[in-house]
């Protein structure tokens, strides 16, 4: 079920209207039933996967805790959990990719193998990358002794399938979410105000900004890039779209969680205008970044093994992050490029610091900051070409046209700017709007001010509601649904 659908509005109305009147002991069952309904709405058979993951991890978590002190037995149960989750993920998400690449390699070496004989063309279960990571984290945390296993199967099942964050995160962690299902239901007016505000804000971001940007740039990515200026504008618009689209999902998820009395951890902390790539990763998709940090980067040695080892660890993490996003060479490249920029930043840390110091001395701190932000934005946008382009050839054509075909296209675009495609002009306008909203939040704490003032809240919420009604709660799915 998509958040931006009519049925979801009816679903949430039904959920809340019954939920508040149920006794606490039944609330978990109600939410669990609805979460499974939510997940199985379009493809009921996919429920079996989430049930399998839930059952196995519940059992493994229990067994790992039971054998406390017996590391080898604990490991066995941990491996069962990892094998099950990674097996599900690998089979449904990566089978065709790896088989396709293997067959390609065989053909390259001279064996004539028809890939179609081995490809399964499986439907990717929605949200599989999110809930498998969430359940794996649970078992690993028990193994490490950071968390106790869930006492109650139904509460654990709800932790895995909690519908607001099930299909596109934030990836929750057991110590934060699981205990909330055991507490009595509590709700404050502050939570309601914030919840409603976030839901409306999320819908406005999705149906007004993200979907419009998606529509503007769609035609540009259907074929090879023909013009550097157009390709560059489409590239910038996509980077804005993906931020607005993904953060809107998180806003709605957190908002619904608050109305149900639960706190879901934030997934974004103003990542749109940042002065460096590492800073961006600290603020973007926080729950997943933390997952990779805690379960991949640190076990690999983190930054304790010297400079070279740290850089290698970063590259491994970013490679896996790319692979997590999608089973294709584009995403692998996306991950590696992100890793390369992170590594470059670490290498250039000292000269960059000197440059920053010089700017400060000259009183050019603010311009220097925004030059860095623009540079970072363009770098991210360039890397995102591999995220957005449907195939390798189109991605390459984008890089070629934008960076390697001279400045002729840009000069012509500037000279004929009045005749520029109106949709791209709108796209660029949206980037400016998002930038201003973003910076208003950073400097003035706009959201907190609105939440603190009831009149402002009422006016803004009515305006947002009218906007959502006018634009309509429908449209393409969220970008991160595909993962």
């Amino acid at each position, binding site marked *: 079920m998509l958040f931006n659908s009519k049925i979801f509005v009816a679903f949430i109305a039904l959920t809340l209207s019954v939920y508040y009147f149920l006794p606490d002991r039944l609330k978990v069952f109600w939410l669990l039933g609805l979460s499974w309904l939510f997940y199985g709405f379009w493809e009921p058979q996919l429920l079996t996967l989430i049930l399998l993951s839930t059952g196995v991890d519940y059992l493994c978590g229990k067994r790992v805790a039971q054998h406390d002190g017996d590391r080898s037995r604990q490991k066995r149960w941990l491996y069962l959990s990892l094998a099950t989750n990674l097996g599900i993920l690998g089979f449904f998400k990566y089978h065709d990719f790896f088989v396709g690449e293997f067959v390609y390699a065989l053909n390259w070496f001279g064996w004539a193998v028809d890939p179609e004989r081995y490809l399964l063309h499986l439907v990717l279960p929605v949200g599989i990358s999110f809930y498998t990571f969430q359940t794996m984290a649970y078992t690993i945390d028990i193994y490490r002794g*950071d968390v106790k296993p869930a006492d109650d199967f139904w509460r654990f099942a709800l932790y895995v399938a909690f519908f607001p964050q099930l299909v596109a995160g934030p990836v929750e962690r057991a110590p934060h979410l699981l205990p909330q299902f055991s507490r009595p239901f509590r709700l404050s007016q502050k939570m309601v105000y914030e919840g409603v505000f976030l839901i409306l804000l999320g819908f406005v971001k999705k149906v007004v900004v993200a979907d419009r940007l998606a529509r503007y740039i769609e035609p540009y990515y259907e074929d090879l890039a023909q013009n550097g200026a157009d390709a560059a504008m489409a590239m910038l618009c996509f980077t804005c779209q993906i931020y607005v689209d993904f953060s809107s999902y998180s806003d709605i998820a957190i908002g619904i969680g608050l109305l149900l*009395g639960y706190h879901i951890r934030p997934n974004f902390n103003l990542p749109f205008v940042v002065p460096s790539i590492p800073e961006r990763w600290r603020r973007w998709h926080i729950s997943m970044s933390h997952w990779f940090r805690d379960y991949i980067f640190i076990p690999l040695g983190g930054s304790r093994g010297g400079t070279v080892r740290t850089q290698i660890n970063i590259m491994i993490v970013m490679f896996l992050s790319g692979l997590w996003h999608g089973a294709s060479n584009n995403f692998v490249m996306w991950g590696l490029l992100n890793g390369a920029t992170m590594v470059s930043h670490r290498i250039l840390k000292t000269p960059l610091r000197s440059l920053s110091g010089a700017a400060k001395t000259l009183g050019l701190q603010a311009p220097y900051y925004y030059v860095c932000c623009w540079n970072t934005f363009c770098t991210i946008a360039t890397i995102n070409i591999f995220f957005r382009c449907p195939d390798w050839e189109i991605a390459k054509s984008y890089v070629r046209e934008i960076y390697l075909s001279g400045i002729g296209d840009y000069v012509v675009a500037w000279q004929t700017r009045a005749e520029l495609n109106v949709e791209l002009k709108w796209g660029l306008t949206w980037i400016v709007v998002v930038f201003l909203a973003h910076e208003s939040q950073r400097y003035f704490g706009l959201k907190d001010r609105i939440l603190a003032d009831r009149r402002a809240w009422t006016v803004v919420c009515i305006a947002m509601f009218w906007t959502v*009604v006018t634009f309509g709660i429908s449209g393409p799915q969220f970008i991160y649904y595909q993962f």
Partner: protein
Amino acid sequence: MPRPVPPPPPQPTVAETRAGVRLVAVLAFAIVGLMLVFAIPYSVRGPMVEYGRSNGASWNRYKLKKMSRKKLRLHEGGRIAWLVGSSILRDSFDEKLVNRLLEEEGSEYRVRKFGQTRGASALSAGVVRRLPMEPGDLVVHNVAAENFRRDWVDFSELPGWRLQLWLKPHEIWAIQEWSLAERLEEMVAVPRDFYSFHEDHMEGTRLWLTWAIRQGERPEKRTKSYHLTYKKSELIGRLKSARRRGIESSYRVEDADFDLSPEQFNMRGLATLRRAAKHGQAELVLVDIPPRQEYQATFLDEGVRKRWDEWRAEQPELVYFPQQLEDDYYDMKHPNSRGRRSLSRYFVSWLNHRQVGAPTPLHWPPDD
């Protein structure tokens, strides 16, 4: 070591919870109320809808709404032939020309036309239901083989609002091609007028907002001239046709996809249409307006043609209109201005003589 995950924040008190739940209830009522208030301008004659009406289906609803019943039957005899159907019917008959010829001949009939893209039987039934029919009226509806594909709803890519515009909820619920989830999605679309006219309202709002920004020409209400420009559809049609010939093999109707069972979406619609005409005490006539011979030969499977012939022969209300010259179509199926003149004149003659006609034998490729 990984950084510890922070525990959940402390909870509010019981008293705060009561106040919180009360606030949710108040907000829920406020949201429903606001939704109803905001939905008021969404109607067939909504202000923004009038500026943004951009398709034939919505235009037909508007035409029905503003049709003056007093002026409708001022002519001698006072009978109306309601032409209701798809774009083929829309492009085959020139309402103005037909009415002029009928007037010249002193006929007791005048025509009113309600044609729309994808206006096959199911959607046309929705139009017929709303017609102010009287005993002695005629309902003329065109049928075509391609509308009886098993996957017609999916194939035609009709958006939900088009179905909302004409179908009743139980008819939407009965769409067999759709999964339960898809049917539920359309069933919860209330208020119905809000969803039916949302596209037009949005377009009108967009025109006004962008006018304010661009300071261009003031938006104008979209009137008859916008919706009935044959030249426009002829131009678009020619382009589409060229494309269709080349690559759009999905337009070909295969025997296995051809479904004349009573459960097929348009077959169900045809039954509804028959009931609606009967209820209005009007005579129903199904007309077969043949597409180009090239279309029949290349887009309709041989088995389809055979079954289609058999089905047509069994329909008591069916009338065959003559095959037009291949050059008298602007694309594979739609008559151009020459074909339209010819078919309009034939329609007037048919109204006087009621000849049943016969299917034209397929002759393709043509002799040089």
